């Protein structure tokens, strides 16, 4: 199995576990540890625990300098394995599937599913 395919399959597995509710993610707003000393922006960090490893997932916005005084904002999704102090031990290679995982995690942590079900059942009354 090619290494990149292995990572994609691992991320797809995380998406499945997240969508089935077997992997619970928590929201962490303390993003300083990652962005300190940079102009990068992270709104929220998601953490989870799977197979004795701590996982950290986030979207980072950063300046992409086109010329010396011109830049545009770019963004990238990161998935890392971290230690107990929150230091990144390993970062998954960048891949579009990480956005699918981020979408699934946002869906889970926002509780939008429960909200919509509650709202619809209220509307029926």
């Amino acid at each position, binding site marked *: 199995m090619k290494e990149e395919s292995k990572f994609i399959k691992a991320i*797809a597995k995380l998406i499945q576990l997240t*969508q089935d509710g077997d992997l619970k993610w928590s929201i962490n707003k303390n993003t300083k540890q990652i962005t300190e000393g940079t102009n990068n922006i992270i709104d929220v960090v998601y953490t989870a625990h799977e197979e004795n490893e701590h996982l950290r997932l986030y979207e980072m916005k950063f300046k992409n300098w086109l010329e010396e005084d011109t830049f545009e904002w770019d963004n990238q999704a990161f998935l890392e394995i971290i230690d107990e102090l929150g230091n990144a031990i390993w970062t998954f290679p960048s891949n579009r599937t990480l956005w699918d995982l981020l*979408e*699934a995690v946002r869906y889970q942590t926002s509780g939008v599913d429960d909200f919509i079900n509650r709202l619809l059942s209220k509307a029926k009354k």
Partner: protein
Amino acid sequence: MNDALVQSTKDLSNNTFSYIGSIASIIGFLISAWVLFKIRIIESHFLFKVRFPTLKRQVGKHSATISRHLNSFPDSANEIEIELKKCQADLKNLKSKLNGSSKTSVKEILKNINKLPSPLNEYSKQSIREVHLSLVLLEQDLDNLKEDLQWRSNK
């Protein structure tokens, strides 16, 4: 005697010219066929280069949409079915432009989409996930192909 000699010389030169003419026609036909064949290759190569980035982007879009709708499955079964239909159309288009292992992957995905029941039910979730994973892997494969193409055109 002299007349006969002149006539036979004329006949010989006429036969030679006609023989050369025939050979030239055959060569001309072969060259035309070869040029036509080359034009077709160039045309399909050009079409592939123009359409490839769009089709690759579409594959990514379909896989992202399917994954997003899987968050609320089976409520989103209808949306996934519609996306799979769009995906099928793009994959059929892509299949005709690919060769080798990428073409085999596309055929396999199309086969798996066809196997899905209509309408989709809660038991289809795992099969949809497999289609999603295959689409992501195909997208990766197409990324590699794109890099190969760029490398070839820079050579």
